Each structure stands twice: as structure tokens, then as C-alpha cells.
């Protein structure tokens, strides 16, 4: 047990749950579906972080590992990204994507909880060993789900935030939304970079990336929902 693999993920988890609380409060005020999906996505983020902290503090547990892989590795980005799709598109086909995501998530749940695990394969030569990795899942067809969900989630969440930021900037309108979306985009990219550096053998990179991601997205959300003074000429 180290500070890196317990404190960092537990802190990221706590921030995610607090973030989710603020998002749900706004959802109950506004009743907009993107807020509901973002809230659910941040709950997934918090569950993932909690499972990582649990692994750091108490070691291997198959149920906690499956929870981590389902919520932290597969679903979180896609559900957050689906929220952004609801925010920006507002068309009927978005409901079709939502149904696909829900069915895909149920399929992921089934695959992860029926997969065979081998904790001796948790670390590889490139991995630091201080963070959870998906290598312990030995059943074929489970880990291949992850890039599909994460690609969809990253493109929609980060791409949507960049697009929103650009639209507001072009019109020089609602500065707080422009700035907030940049924070959200950077925060959403942080775990992806953390994961890449972790695979390359940089210790703690994943957990640092996830903590930074939770903090920056929280700042971005608060910034985007709190108007700031603008000097307009």
C-alpha cells in the first residue's frame, strides 16, 4: 500500500462523487438529459477510483476488480460522452445512440462478470505494477470492448467540449462557457494520457491522470455554470 495507489484514487473518487452531486442538483433544477448522463458518468468515475483505492489498500479482490473494469475502464467515458451528445445534438437519433449504449453496457456487464480472471497476469513487463490493468481478464472478447467505448466517449466528450468552446469563442459569447469547456476537454484527456504513460511504464501515471481529470472537469463544470465578468467592446 502506498500513498500513490491509495490516496490518489480515493481522492479522485471523492471528488467525482462530489462532482456528481453538483451535476444531479443541476439536473433536478433543469431536468435536462445531458445532466443526468453526466451525473451517472461521474458516479462511474467515482466507483472506478474507489475500486483502484481498494486494490491499493487491501489488494486483489475479484468482485472489486470486475467493478473497476466495468465502470472505470469500459463505461465511464462513453456515458459522459453520451451526455455531451444529448447536449449538442438534440435529435431523435440521439435516443438511438442511447439505446445502443445501454445495450452495449449491459453486454459489457455480462462479459465482465462472467470473464475468467488470472491475477498473476495483472502486471506485464511494460506496466508499473502499482496500478490496476486489464491483463488479468483472460477470457477473449472482453478487453476488446474497452477501446470501442473509450473511443466513442473520448471523441464525443472531448470533441464536444472543444466544439462548444469554439462556437462560444467565435461569437465572443458567454466567456465562462468557453473557458469551462476548455477545462472539461483537458480534464477528459488527462486519464487517457495517464493510461498511455502507465502502459509505457511511468509509475502512478494513470492515477495522477485520473485525479487531474476529475479536478479539471469539476473546475470546468463549475466554471461553465457560473457566469464571469466580460469586458465587451
Amino acid at each position: 500500500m502506498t500513498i500513490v495507489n491509495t490516496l490518489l484514487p480515493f481522492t479522485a473518487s471523492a471528488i467525482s462523487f462530489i462532482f456528481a452531486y453538483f451535476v444531479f442538483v443541476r439536473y433536478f433544477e433543469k431536468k435536462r438529459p445531458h445532466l443526468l448522463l453526466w451525473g451517472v458518468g461521474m458516479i462511474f468515475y467515482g466507483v472506478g477510483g474507489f475500486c483502484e483505492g481498494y486494490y491499493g489498500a487491501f489488494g486483489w479482490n475479484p468482485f472489486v476488480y470486475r467493478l473497476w473494469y466495468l465502470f472505470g475502464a469500459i463505461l465511464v467515458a462513453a456515458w459522459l460522452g453520451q451526455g455531451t451528445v444529448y447536449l449538442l445534438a438534440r435529435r431523435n437519433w440521439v435516443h438511438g445512440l442511447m439505446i445502443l449504449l445501454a445495450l452495449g453496457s449491459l453486454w459489457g456487464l455480462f462479459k465482465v462478470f462472467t470473464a475468467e480472471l488470472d491475477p498473476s497476469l495483472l502486471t506485464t513487463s511494460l506496466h508499473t505494477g502499482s496500478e490496476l490493468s486489464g491483463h488479468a481478464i483472460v477470457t477473449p472478447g472482453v478487453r476488446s470492448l474497452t477501446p470501442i467505448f473509450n473511443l466513442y466517449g473520448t471523441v464525443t466528450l472531448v470533441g464536444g467540449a472543444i466544439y462548444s468552446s469554439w462556437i462560444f469563442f467565435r461569437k465572443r459569447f458567454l466567456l465562462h462557457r468557453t473557458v469551462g469547456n476548455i477545462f472539461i476537454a483537458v480534464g477528459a484527456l488527462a486519464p487517457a494520457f495517464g493510461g498511455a504513460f502507465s502502459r509505457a511504464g511511468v509509475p502512478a501515471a494513470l492515477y495522477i491522470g485520473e485525479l487531474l481529470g476529475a479536478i479539471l472537469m469539476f473546475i470546468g463544470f463549475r466554471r461553465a455554470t457560473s457566469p464571469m465578468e466580460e469586458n465587451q467592446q
Partner: protein
Amino acid sequence: MSEKNSSPDRKYPTFYEKFIPIAIFILAVIVVGMLIFTLAIGVGAIQFS
């Protein structure tokens, strides 16, 4: 005939006028780079353990 101007009359504070387009550009490059990288892995051009 009216002349179209891509830059509106309204302006953000100077810092944001300079910082925001740079940030958006860098982020867009990163996302496009990630997509190309993912595509390269998908078609087998890059082996990633």
C-alpha cells in the same frame, strides 16, 4: 453590399482572446492525433501490447 467579418464586434478580455484559440487548436490537434493513432492500431500498423 454588406461586408462579412468573421471577428465579431464583441471581444473577450485580452488574455482570453490570445489564450483560447491556442488552447482550442492544441486540443484539436491532440484529439486528431489520438484518432489517427487509434486507427493505426486498429488496422495493425502499430503493435501496442
